[in-house]
C-alpha cells in the first residue's frame, strides 16, 4: 500500500501539486473569464488578472464586522487549508503522491464539505441578512448535491473495488475499456453537474453577480476584505482547479505520471494542466450559452444528477 517511489520524487510531486493548484487556480479563473469575454465579443482582462487582484488584496486592510466572533476570520483559513490537504494527497499529476494511500474519494468529498461549512458559518457570523441568505442557499444546494456526488463516487469505486483515488486511476489505466462503459459515462455527467453546483458556476450560481437577490456564494462572503477576501477568492479558485483535475484524471487518466522520474512528472504536469484548461474552456463556453436557473429549479437538476448516478451504479454492476 505504501509508495515505493523515491522520496525525492514524492516530495517533488507534492510540491508541484500544491504550487500548481495555488497558482493554477487563479489562472484557470482568468482563462475562463477570457474565453467568456471573447465569446461575448469583448477583449477581456489578461489571464493573469486574478493573480494581480490577489496581490492587490493582500495589501489592503483587514476588517471585521463589529458583531463577528473568531469564526469570521477563521473560515477563509479553513477553506484554503482543506483544499491544500486535498492538493497534497490527491493524485493530480502522478498516480502515487506521497500520501496517496490515504486519498479516499469519500474523504475528499467530506474535506470539501468542511470548507463549505466554514464559509457558511463565516457568512452567518456577520450578523447581516446577506450573510445568512448566502449561507442558507449554499448549504441547501450543497445538501441536495451530496447524494448525486456520493453515489457517483460509488459508481466509480465499484469496478475498482476501492474508493481510493490512485487505485481507481491505476485500474482504469490498465483497463481502458472501462472508460467507455455506460456506467462511467453516466457518472461523468452526474459528476460534472455536481462540480458546477459545488463551485457555484452557471447555471446554479452566477460567479460574476454582485448585490442581487439571486446570488448565493457572493452574498455569503460579502463582508470579507483585504487578505481575507484574497483567501476566499484563492480558496474558491483552488477548489475549482482541484475538482477539475480530479475529474479529468478519473475519467481521462492518460498522461498522468505512472512512474517516478523528471520526464514522467513533466508529462503529467503538462497533460493535467492541458486537461484542466480544456475543461475550463468547455465550461466557460457552456456558461455563455445558458442563463442562471431559479433557485427552486436547482433541486430538479440535482435530482436528475442523482438518478443518473444511481443508473451509473446499476449499469456498473451489469456491465462490469
Amino acid at each position, binding site marked *: *500500500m505504501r509508495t515505493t517511489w523515491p522520496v525525492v520524487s514524492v516530495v517533488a510531486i507534492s510540491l508541484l501539486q500544491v504550487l500548481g493548484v495555488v497558482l493554477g487556480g487563479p489562472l484557470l479563473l482568468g482563462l475562463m473569464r477570457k474565453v467568456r469575454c471573447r465569446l461575448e465579443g469583448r477583449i477581456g482582462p489578461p489571464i493573469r488578472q486574478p493573480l494581480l487582484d490577489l496581490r492587490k488584496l493582500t495589501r489592503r486592510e*483587514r*476588517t*471585521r464586522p*463589529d*458583531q*463577528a*466572533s473568531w469564526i469570521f476570520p477563521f473560515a477563509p*483559513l*479553513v477553506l*484554503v*487549508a*482543506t483544499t491544500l*490537504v486535498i492538493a497534497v494527497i490527491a493524485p493530480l499529476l502522478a498516480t502515487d503522491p506521497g500520501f496517496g*494511500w*490515504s486519498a*479516499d474519494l*469519500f*474523504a475528499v468529498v*467530506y*474535506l470539501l*464539505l468542511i470548507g463549505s*461549512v466554514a464559509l*457558511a*458559518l463565516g457568512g*452567518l*457570523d*456577520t*450578523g*447581516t*441578512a446577506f*450573510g*445568512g441568505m448566502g*449561507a*442558507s442557499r449554499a*448549504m*441547501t444546494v*450543497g*445538501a*441536495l*448535491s*451530496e*447524494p448525486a*456526488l*456520493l453515489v457517483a463516487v*460509488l459508481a466509480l469505486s465499484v469496478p475498482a473495488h476501492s*474508493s*481510493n483515488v*490512485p*487505485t481507481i486511476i491505476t485500474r482504469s489505466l490498465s483497463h481502458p475499456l472501462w472508460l467507455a462503459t455506460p456506467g462511467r459515462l453516466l457518472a461523468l455527467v452526474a459528476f460534472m453537474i455536481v462540480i458546477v453546483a459545488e463551485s457555484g458556476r452557471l447555471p446554479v450560481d452566477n460567479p460574476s453577480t454582485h448585490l442581487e437577490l439571486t446570488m448565493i456564494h457572493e452574498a455569503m462572503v460579502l*463582508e470579507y476584505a483585504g*487578505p481575507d477576501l484574497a*483567501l476566499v477568492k484563492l480558496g474558491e479558485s483552488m477548489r475549482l482547479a482541484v475538482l477539475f483535475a480530479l475529474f479529468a484524471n478519473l475519467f481521462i487518466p492518460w498522461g498522468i505520471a505512472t512512474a517516478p522520474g523528471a520526464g514522467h512528472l513533466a508529462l503529467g504536469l503538462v497533460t493535467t494542466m492541458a486537461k484542466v484548461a480544456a475543461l475550463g474552456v468547455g465550461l466557460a463556453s457552456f456558461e455563455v450559452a445558458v442563463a442562471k436557473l431559479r433557485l427552486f429549479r436547482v*433541486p430538479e437538476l440535482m435530482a436528475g444528477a*442523482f438518478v443518473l448516478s*444511481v443508473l451509473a*451504479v*446499476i449499469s456498473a*454492476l451489469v456491465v*462490469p
Partner: protein
Amino acid sequence: MTGALLVATALLGLAASLAGAIAPGRIRTLLSSVLTIASCGFGLAVATEVLHTGHVAVVHTDRLLPLSGFSLMLDRFGALFVAVSAVVGICAMVFRLGYDGHGLSSRTASSVLPLFVTTLLLVPTAASVTTFLFLWELMAVSSLLLVLVDHRRRPEVQEAAQWYAVMTQFGAAALLLGLVLLATRTGGQSFAAIAAGSAHLPSWVKSSAFVLVVIGFGSKAGMVPLHVWLPRAHPEAPGPVSALMSAAMVNLGIYGIVRVGDGLLGGGPVWWWLLVMTLGALSALFGSLHSATSTDLKRLLAYSTTDNVGLMLLGVGASGLFASAGHQSLALVALAAALLHVVFHAVFKGSLFLTASSIQQATGTRDLDQLGGLLKRMPVTGSLFLVGGLSIAALPPLCGFVSEWLLLQAMLHGLPSSNPAIAVAMPIGVGVLALTGGLTALTFVKAAGIGLLGRPRTKPAAQAGEVHESMWIGAGVLATLCLVFGVAPFLVIPAVLDAARNVIGTHIPDPLVGGWQVGLSGIHGVLAPGLLGLGLLVAVSLVAGARRLVQRAAVRRTEAWGCGREVQTARMQYTATSFGEPLTRVFEDVLSPSHDLDVSHVAESRYYVEAATFHTSLNDGFERHLYRPAAGGLRWWGTIARRVPNGSVHRYLAFGLVALIVVLVVVA
C-alpha cells in the same frame, strides 16, 4: 469478580436512589450524583473487563423476582452498551451538579434519576425474558417520571409525557408478545435457552417474533413511524435526562434488535433485513429533514436522534442482508459500523444535548430565533457545541465521519455480490446516507450559526453569561472524546469488532486493518483520520502564518454593509426559520407546511396596514395521517364500550359466565 462488580453497580444505584429520597435538601443532589457516578464507574469497570478479556459476567438469584428469579449475564456485546451508558451517565451526573431548575433537585427526581441511570446500565445485562422486561419497564417508567418533573410550570410537558407513555407501553406490549412467543415455543425463558431452541422453530414463529420485537425496540429507538413521542419527550425533559435519553436509552433499542435478530434468532431471511433497512432509511431521511427545518434547539437535536438511529438501522440491516447472502466478513463490517455509530452518536449527541441545556439555562429559551451571538458571551459552552456539531455533521477529523465512512465501505464492497436485493438496496442506502449527511451539515450550520454567531436577537441572549464549571466538564469530556475517537478510532474499533463478533459469529477473521488507519483488509486504500487531522492543522497554521506575513496591521472593526442603511438591527439577520425556508419549499410535499398570514387594516383606509402577523408551522405527516385517526378511533371505541358496563351486577355475572365458557371451549 465481574459478577461482584455488577452487583456493586446495581447496589450503588439503589443507594443513590435511596439517598435522593431521604437526604436533606442541601446535600441531596451532591450525594445522589456522587453515588450514581460511583455506580457508573463500577459499570464501566465491569464492561471494560468483559470487553477486554471476553469472560462473561454472570449473576443469578432466585429471590428477587417470583417464579423465575433474576438473572444477569454480561457478554461483550452487552458490555459495549453498558460502557456507553456508563460514560454518558457519568458526564450527565457531573453536568447535573451545576444544573439548576426544571425541578431536577426535587426529592422525587433525585431518587428516580439514579434509578433510570442504573436501569440503563443493567438492561444490556439481562439474561432472561422476565428480568429483561422487568428492567425495561423500570427504565420506561423512571424516564417517564423524569420527563414529567417540570409539568407544573409548563403544560406542554404533560402532552409530551402522554405521548411518551402511550408509545412506550405500546412498544412494551409488542415486546412482551414477541419475547413470550419465543419463550413458550422454545421451552425456556432464559436467553440461552431461546438461542439454543430457536434453530428448530417454524419460520412463521421466528418472523412474527422478529416483527414484534422490531416494533417494540423501534418505538424506544425513535424509529419512523413510531418516532412521534421522541421529538416531544426528549426536549421537554430536563437537560441531563434528555442527554441520557438521546445518547443512552435509544441505543438499547438497537441493542434489542441486534440481540434478538442476530443473537437469539441467529439471523433470518432477506426480507427481515430489507424491512430493517427500509425503516432505517425512512427514519434517517425523515429525521434529518425535520431536524433541518426545526427552530427549537432541543427539538432539532431530538429529530437528529431519529436520523442517527436510522443510520444505525441501515448498518444493522445491511449486516443482516450480507449474512443471509453468505458474506460473513462484510456482515461483521456493517454491524461494526452500526455499533461504532452507536458509540459515536452517544458521545456527540450527549455533548450536544448537555451544551444545549446550558444555553437554555443561560438564556431561558430553546428557540433559535431568540438566540444569537452566544459564542462571544459563552465561549466555552459555544466551542463545545461547535465540536459536537462538527462531529454530528460527520466532518473529519471528528468521530462521526469514521463510522459513516465504514458504513459506506461496507455498502460499497457488498455491491458486487450476485444478490439482486443487495444490488438495489446498497446504492439507495448510499444515497440516503449522503442526503442525510448533507442535511445534517445544513442543520448544524443553522444551529451553530443562528444560535451562537451574529448578533443577539433578544435581551436575554445579549445578557447571557457562562454557566457553572461542572457543566463545562460534563459536556467537555464528551466533546473531547469526539475529537479523540475521531483522530484515533483504534481506541474503540477493536472493542466494537469484538462486540459484533459476539452476536454474529466468533470465527470470522478480523476484517479491518488496525493501527491509526481504518480500512478493510485486502482492499486498497484506507482512511487515515489522524493524518487528515494533522494535515488540516498544519495547513491552517501555514495559511494563517502567510496571512499574518502579508498584512501585519490590526484588524479594523467595522459596521457591516446594510444596503446603505445607517443602523443594522438584529431583526435584519436571517433566522432559523428563514434559513430552513428553501428546504421547506423543496420538500413541500413531505413537510406540508401551513402558513397563516393575518393582516389587519387601518379603519380609515384599506391601503394602510395596521398590523400583520405571520405564522408558519410544519406538520408531521405520520402524526396527521396515522396517529390522529388512530386516536380518534380509540376514542370512538371508548364511547361505544362505555355502554357495556352499566353497573348492573347481573350483567357482570353474565360476562363472567360467558368468559368461563369460552375459556373451557378453547382449552377443550
